């Protein structure tokens, strides 16, 4: 909200500098985004009246004007604008002047003739919204009544400091000059200068128009005031200047009046041309199916029955709280008007504004909420100005509010306040700030009975009162409170989710994988890019209102985002990249009891520049540390290499908990431009969390010597290592404590469809040192089963 300080001063005296005023407002809860000095940009530019025009002695396309300007002096100015006439009042930049775009003007000679300065075009003095009759290249012309020799900043309403204040959502009452003035008054202790309630209306009831409200939930209060004998004309300078300072263009006196009142006291007004209220009927009703309206912006809007309208006997004249209709608003022929000051429900205005995609100053205010009191204020101020300026005569009034709502009274003890705030609060701390904010206080024994001002809908309970008190007496009361109070001593627990997540991350970090954080949303096309659109078809969670196509769905897997970020690293030339992400995935749930989708923590790892086995080692290391026994089975996935991908299976439960492998070249290279082998692994981390057993029972180690034996066997090369080791274990007794393959050989020593596999076997007993006979027996059984299962033979 833009607040010109001079306007604010109409309501309250201000002795603070703009900077101090800003600080005071911030301390009271009003963020001041900016202090704008409107005069800063343009300097030393004055209005000047052309007295005489001569041709330039040396140039045909130039003229020399004699003007009267600053301090009643006359100046000679050379210009190329041949359209200038004697008596035109134009902006004159004198020696050393600053123009809007930053240009500095100096006295000089133009084709041999001294020019004391330069006339300015509209843009050079910051006017960008002029009518088409003035081209930006021509010199700007002020109206003939403009004072001569004045600083243009004053003429244009730019001799002003404006505060840009952001107002929190609970304080719609402060969304006006008056609202801010009330706060300034409370902070500084200076009383408000105007008390509008003293001048309540004494007009006769409106009979010339029949007002009806069909939906009094959406229209909570409606005041309509008939004003006769209106003259439509230009607004007085003070209104034009003030509107300009808050960024509103002047149109005519009545339109300006509605805007001026809205900014002054926060109440949007609307003016209907009385002659267009056909049937003398003003009906506030939902639009009917098929109705439409041409709004003031010239656009035709189709309405539906969810939208509240103001109608005459035939058709909608305005979309309630949003915008008026073109056909029923005032024009130069308007004689009598109906001034509307209404309270439309927030939600109703918001929904209408949203579905029509039409916003206005008025709709924004209604969306934030307006109290019942403002409708009177708005009408009173409007009639006051009409009266002062002699624009018309108020005739009669309709007000739908029959019973003024009771003012809220909140009762409390001072201890209630200090309990909330945790600091000592005395009676004066309570009375002074609340009174200054317009609360009325009656003290009854220990109790304060506090009547809430009618404009403060946000005050509902003691906590609200506590906040009002502390924000006025100042939060610096807390400066002395240091770190001593931590409340009840409770054990702070990180919990398994956090601890296991950190444990997993630590393992991956140790193996050189760095962490990335990707967005939870991915584009719809992502699923097509990695060929999984069919797999997830029914399960995808889509956003109803994504920021863009890129963020359209919640990711059902981490792999896509991971491939993307790997590609980014690859394309930027980063070598040997290893990344992981631990995050949730989202899919629709089959569980009817849960309304919410299924969220699942997943772990994704990826690398290029290192081998499949390195990635697999990291995964196995992770599983080892989490005490999961896993087996790997070849897996076909739409985006993975058909012969270089495995599913990861919990050996105990047989549950598939993820996959690991190499991304298909037709995806990594053709879609993502990664010309290296891209390795990828995605694991259901939720499964690890839910099934984690941890370390349980201590087991002693064997005191007896361990015996190592190596065997080498030759067998078919397609037999996978995991099956060989499983067979070895199946054949041996518990004396075999460890078996692993330490060498695989393909080549001239064996047939081309064979391989030689060397296996390390380690035997140990808990009861005695093993002898050769025992060990040889084990080896024979192992060998026999390998022979039986795989036709293996000793090398």
């Amino acid at each position, binding site marked *: 909200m833009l607040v010109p300080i001079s306007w604010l001063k109409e309501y309250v005296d201000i002795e603070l500098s703009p900077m101090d005023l800003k600080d005071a407002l911030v301390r009271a809860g009003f963020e001041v985004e900016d202090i704008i000095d409107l005069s800063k940009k343009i300097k030393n530019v004055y209005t000047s009246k052309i007295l005489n025009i001569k041709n330039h002695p040396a140039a045909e396309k130039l003229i020399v004007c004699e003007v009267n300007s600053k301090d009643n002096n006359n100046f000679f100015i050379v210009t190329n604008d041949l359209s200038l006439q004697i008596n035109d009042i134009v902006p004159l930049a004198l020696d050393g002047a600053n123009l809007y775009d930053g240009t500095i003007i100096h006295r000089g000679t133009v084709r041999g003739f001294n020019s004391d300065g330069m006339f300015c075009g509209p843009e050079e003095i910051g006017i960008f919204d002029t009518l088409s009759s003035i081209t930006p290249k021509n010199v700007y012309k002020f109206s003939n009544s403009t004072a001569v020799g004045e600083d243009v900043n004053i003429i244009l309403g730019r001799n002003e400091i404006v505060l840009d204040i952001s107002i929190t959502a609970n304080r719609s009452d402060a969304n006006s000059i008056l609202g801010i003035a009330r706060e300034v008054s409370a902070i500084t202790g200076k009383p408000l200068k105007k008390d509008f309630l003293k001048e309540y209306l004494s007009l006769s009831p409106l009979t010339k128009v029949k007002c009806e409200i069909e939906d009094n939930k959406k229209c909570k209060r409606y005041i309509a005031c008939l004003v006769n004998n209106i003259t439509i004309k230009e607004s007085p300078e003070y209104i034009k200047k003030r509107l300009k300072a808050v960024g509103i263009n002047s149109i005519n006196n009545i339109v300006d009046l509605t805007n001026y009142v809205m900014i002054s006291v926060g109440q949007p007004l609307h003016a209907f041309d009385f002659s267009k209220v056909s049937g003398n009927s003003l009906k506030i009703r939902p639009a009917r199916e098929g109705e439409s309206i041409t709004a003031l912006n010239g656009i035709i809007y189709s309405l539906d029955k969810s939208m509240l309208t103001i109608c005459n006997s035939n058709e909608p004249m305005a979309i309630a709280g949003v915008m008026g209709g073109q056909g029923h608003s005032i024009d130069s022929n308007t004689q009598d008007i109906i001034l509307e000051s209404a309270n439309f429900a927030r939600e109703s205005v*918001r929904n209408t504004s949203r579905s029509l995609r039409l916003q206005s100053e008025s709709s924004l205010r209604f969306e934030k909420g307006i109290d019942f009191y403002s409708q009177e204020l708005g009408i009173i101020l409007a009639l006051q100005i009409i009266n002062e300026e002699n624009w018309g005569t108020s005739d009669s009034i309709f007000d739908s509010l029959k019973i003024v709502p009771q003012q809220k009274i909140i009762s409390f003890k001072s201890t209630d306040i200090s309990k909330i705030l945790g600091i000592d609060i005395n009676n004066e701390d309570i009375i002074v700030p609340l009174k200054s904010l317009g609360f009325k206080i009656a003290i009854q024994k220990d109790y304060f009975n506090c009547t809430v001002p009618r404009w403060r809908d946000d005050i509902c309970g003691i906590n609200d009162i506590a906040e009002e008190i502390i924000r006025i007496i100042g939060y610096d009361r807390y400066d002395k409170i240091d770190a001593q109070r931590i409340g009840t001593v409770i054990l702070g627990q990180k919990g398994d989710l956090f601890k296991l997540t950190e444990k997993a991350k630590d393992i991956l970090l140790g193996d050189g994988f760095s962490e990335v954080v990707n967005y939870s949303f991915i584009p719809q096309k992502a699923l097509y890019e990695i060929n999984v659109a069919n797999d997830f078809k029914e399960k995808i969670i889509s956003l109803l209102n994504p920021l863009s196509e890129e963020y359209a769905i919640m990711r059902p897997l981490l792999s896509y985002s991971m491939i993307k970020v790997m590609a980014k690293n690859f394309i930027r030339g980063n070598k040997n990249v290893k990344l992981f992400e631990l995050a949730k995935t989202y899919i629709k749930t089959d569980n009817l009891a849960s309304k919410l989708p299924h969220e699942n923590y997943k772990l994704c790892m990826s690398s290029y520049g290192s081998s499949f086995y390195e990635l697999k080692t990291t995964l196995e290391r992770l599983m080892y540390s989490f005490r999961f026994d896993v087996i790997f089975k070849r897996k076909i996935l739409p985006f993975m290499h058909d012969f270089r991908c495995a599913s990861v299976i919990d050996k105990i439960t047989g549950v598939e908990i993820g996959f690991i492998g190499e991304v298909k070249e037709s995806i990594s290279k053709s879609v993502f431009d990664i010309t290296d082998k891209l390795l990828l692994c995605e694991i259901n981390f939720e499964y690890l969390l839910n099934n984690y057993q941890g370390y349980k029972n201590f087991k002693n180690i064997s005191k007896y010597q361990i015996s190592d034996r190596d065997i080498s066997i030759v067998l078919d090369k397609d037999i996978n290592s995991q099956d060989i080791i499983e067979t070895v274990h199946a054949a041996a007794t518990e004396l075999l404590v460890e078996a692993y393959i330490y060498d695989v050989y393909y080549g001239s020593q064996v047939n081309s469809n064979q391989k030689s596999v060397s296996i390390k076997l380690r035997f140990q007993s808990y009861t005695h040192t093993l002898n050769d006979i025992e060990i040889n027996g084990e080896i024979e059984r192992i060998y026999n089963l390998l022979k039986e299962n795989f036709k293996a033979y000793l090398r």
Partner: protein
Amino acid sequence: MEDSILALLDNAKKEIVASNSTSFVNEVRVKYIGRTGLLTSMLKDLKNFPSQDRPAIGKLLNDARIAIENLISQKTAELIVEEQKQKEYNETLDISLSLPSYKRGVLHPLSIVKNEIIDIFTGLGFSIEDGPEIELSKYNFELLNIPADHPSRAFCDSFYISDDILLRTQTSGIQARVMEKTLPPIKIICPGKVYRPDDDATHSPMFQQIEGLYVDKNVSLADLKSVLQLFAKKFFSESTKVRFRPSYFPFTEPSVEVDLSCAMCGGAGCSLCKGTGWLELLGAGVVNPIVLDNCGIDSSIYSGFAFGIGIERATMVKYGIPDMRILFDGDVRYIDQFR
């Protein structure tokens, strides 16, 4: 005889001294004092000498043998040291060479900062709670006193999945869920991803928050100040100050913005704090009694405070990161700086 013994000893000495390897020394040993060595055979020949000469010659021979043995063991010891040295020299490694894959992975700065904050608050007795990111509007809004016509309910301020399901805009939903099923004292922090439709240098449509909640008897705004003061000291430095400014959140009343004195300039004013000396880092307040009552906690007995920290913002402040989007870029050259 005596001369020939001395000559033999002299020769042996010369050969030992000239030896340049343990094996050569061994050859010398065999040559002189081995089983068929020159000196050994002279000893064997002793019986051929007249008996009166034998002791003298015997002594000479024996002395010579001992002298040779001593020389040999001395020389051998020297040579062993030398040979070991040579062997090690031959095994010289270029110790300046490094493998390309020495790097440990690096935790994302957001995780580093999140963990740091978690450490501080768990140390103060707050326990971690988790909850759904896709949330019912009941938990994200209604129970938290954000009525249907509140501005932040507007369609453009949150991402919707359906009419009453949305991506949580704050982790406060977890607080509501915990309060519904737990009796005070409740002392929790809720870290997690939240979603709002903004995307620029200081806003991201997905970001992480840590919200804290403490509900107990007699919890006040002063207790909040105490806890946040402790946090500020641990997170930045012992000299960090905390300042409250009035603000508005529907779920707290009174509500405050919490400023910390600037971590970079200490309050003097710099580019990080835009000359104000303060950094706006948290929102907080006394839990609105309506929220307690909504969640089944009797607000006439209990009160509480709540606060929320944006992890991205804290990370940017802590490390001087100029643009929030850098945190989600994923280029290892960004992340690896945080080792």
